[in-house]
């Protein structure tokens, strides 16, 4: 049994209570991520109408509906270009995009690379549960090699995609990885990402006990969360290595690049 972390009550003005209960399965990591996100909004003292939350399709895609802000549920994989249009039109808005692994780096992978390359001021939180949950447990781009899923009954033959390395390589000016086993740290990282003026990626390792857990023999969410604790290490780079563990930490926080919507305003003045 993992240690229980005492938590304060989630800030109510950021949650649309009338749309609860949410659709996520018991033990899902998305609640932890969402709660940390809205807690940072509260700590930053933002107004609800200064925040735009843009999501795509999938379990993570449904997160926007529960946030009391200006929220958009787009089509599969296209949250980032939508968010890009919004940020370019309204640089004064805090634009946050919640993506799943399939939505963010599968179908939306090209947009992810280019949003990073553009350094558009969007906070992209990629909730990586390493499986397609909403559609019933099919292999995703981040499903580990050898892992069984509903579409890899003999084990996944493909190498898995490393979201943080992808973001790093594509030029995202803020890149971090955290996990749901340490919500306090996750919140701190999300907050730094929200404050970053540029394209910020937070990859969150999150548990899907219903599907990923079922296929990997870890149907108990506590066990999965524990797995994150035991199989990660604090690192400075997504390329750092320590046994077979996964590096976690803020890998890049670079303030030397101009955010795109601001660069465009400067062009107007010239």
């Amino acid at each position, binding site marked *: 049994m993992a240690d229980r972390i005492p938590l304060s009550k989630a800030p109510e003005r950021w949650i649309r209570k009338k749309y609860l209960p949410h659709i996520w399965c018991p033990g899902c990591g998305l609640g932890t991520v969402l709660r940390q996100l809205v807690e940072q909004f509260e700590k930053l003292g933002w107004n609800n109408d200064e925040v735009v939350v843009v999501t795509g399709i999938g379990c993570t895609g449904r997160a926007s509906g529960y946030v009391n802000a200006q929220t958009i549920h787009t089509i599969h994989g296209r949250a980032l270009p939508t968010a890009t*249009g919004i940020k370019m039109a309204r640089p004064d808005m805090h634009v946050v995009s919640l993506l799943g692994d399939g939505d963010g780096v599968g179908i939306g992978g090209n947009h992810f690379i280019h949003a990073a390359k553009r350094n558009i001021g969007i906070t992209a939180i990629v909730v990586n549960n390493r499986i397609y949950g909403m559609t019933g447990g099919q292999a995703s781009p981040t499903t580990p090699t050898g892992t069984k899923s509903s579409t890899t009954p003999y084990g996944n033959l493909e190498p898995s995609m490393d979201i943080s390395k992808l973001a790093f390589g594509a030029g995202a000016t803020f890149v971090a990885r955290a996990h749901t086993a340490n919500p306090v740290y996750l919140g701190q990282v999300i907050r730094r990402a929200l404050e970053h003026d540029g394209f910020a990626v937070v990859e969150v390792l999150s548990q899907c006990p219903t599907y990923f857990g079922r296929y990997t023999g870890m149907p108990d969410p506590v066990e999965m969360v524990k797995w994150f604790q035991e199989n990660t290490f604090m690192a400075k780079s997504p390329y750092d290595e320590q046994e077979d563990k996964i590096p976690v930490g803020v890998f890049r926080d670079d303030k030397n690049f101009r955010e795109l919507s601001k660069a465009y305003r400067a062009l107007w003045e010239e």
Partner: protein
Amino acid sequence: MSKILMGDIACALAAVDAGLKFYAGYPITPSSEIAEALSELLPKHKGIYLQMEDEIGSIMAAIGASYAGYPSMTATSGPGFSLMQEAIGYAAMAEIPVTIIDVMRAGPATGLATQIGEGDLMQAIWGTHGDHPVLVFSPGNVREFYIYTQKALFWAEKLRVPAVVLADEVIGHMKENVELPEPIKIPERRIPDVKPEQYLPYAAVDGDVVPLPPLGSGYLWHMTGSAHGEDGFPTIRPDRVKALLDRLISKTVKHHNELVEYEAYMLDDAEVLVVSFASMGRVSKGVVKELRDRGVKVGLLTPLTMWPFFAPELRAVVDKLNPKKIVVPEINYGQLRILVEWALRGTSVPVIGVNLVNGDLIPPEMIEEAILHG
């Protein structure tokens, strides 16, 4: 003031003159000149040009900017238009105004990248999955490309629907001396009449859409492409889903008379009726004029609004003239002809297609042959 303008440039000027504030696109022949012109013009008008990674990203960025209060459009050709289809359905469902310029080239697939085709008509009307409202305009010359780009932007904003302008390679690349009309301005958004707590983004007032509130004004609504209730939150309740889709479909039907435009040419006493659109409409006009000079009783109808289709108007003309036949020249294998036949279902007037897809305009002789001996 008259100017010598290329069609694609006229389209870009039209958009800026109408009040366009955002363009996102991906280079593709024969529409790239629109992007090039707007990359220069928009920053001078406090607007934004953004080159995206693909056409899906382009239309979604346009939808995002439109949601955020910037009148938006994108431009492309067949292959890119195919990629945009899912997003067109999203704009229809989420009711976000967006205009798509499709400068048609010959398909399918890469087809003839630099040569004319008119094969995107069905795709423009029916391309995305599910029944949905969409507006489709089709200019036949450079001046009309200017006018219908503005009409598309206007109506997209007014009805909160996606609007498509179907030009073609000849119209896009042709240079003409044109007298530009007074611009049609994109309607300004107004603040909703109700307070944020009472705002229902998908509730119709007298059957019409409610205003989209500016970001940062306290309206915290939810937008989705899933079936939703009036509050924008997803629902699977049959009554609410039906109400939503009924209302979406009714938007263009309700405004049929304001939306539908067509040109009638030399219809008096016509025994043969030609129906043709885009560049072939113009070629057909030349043929009709020449045959009239020779005493042949032939007239022409050129739809400028392709959807909603001018079915009742066409039907009325046919009922009045009772022509011996209808000739439909088009650079595809009969997409307009299907619509004409559907509009005239139950009548016995033969509808003859003149179809050729080889990269060129259909030669006038082929049309003449069909009128005289088809």
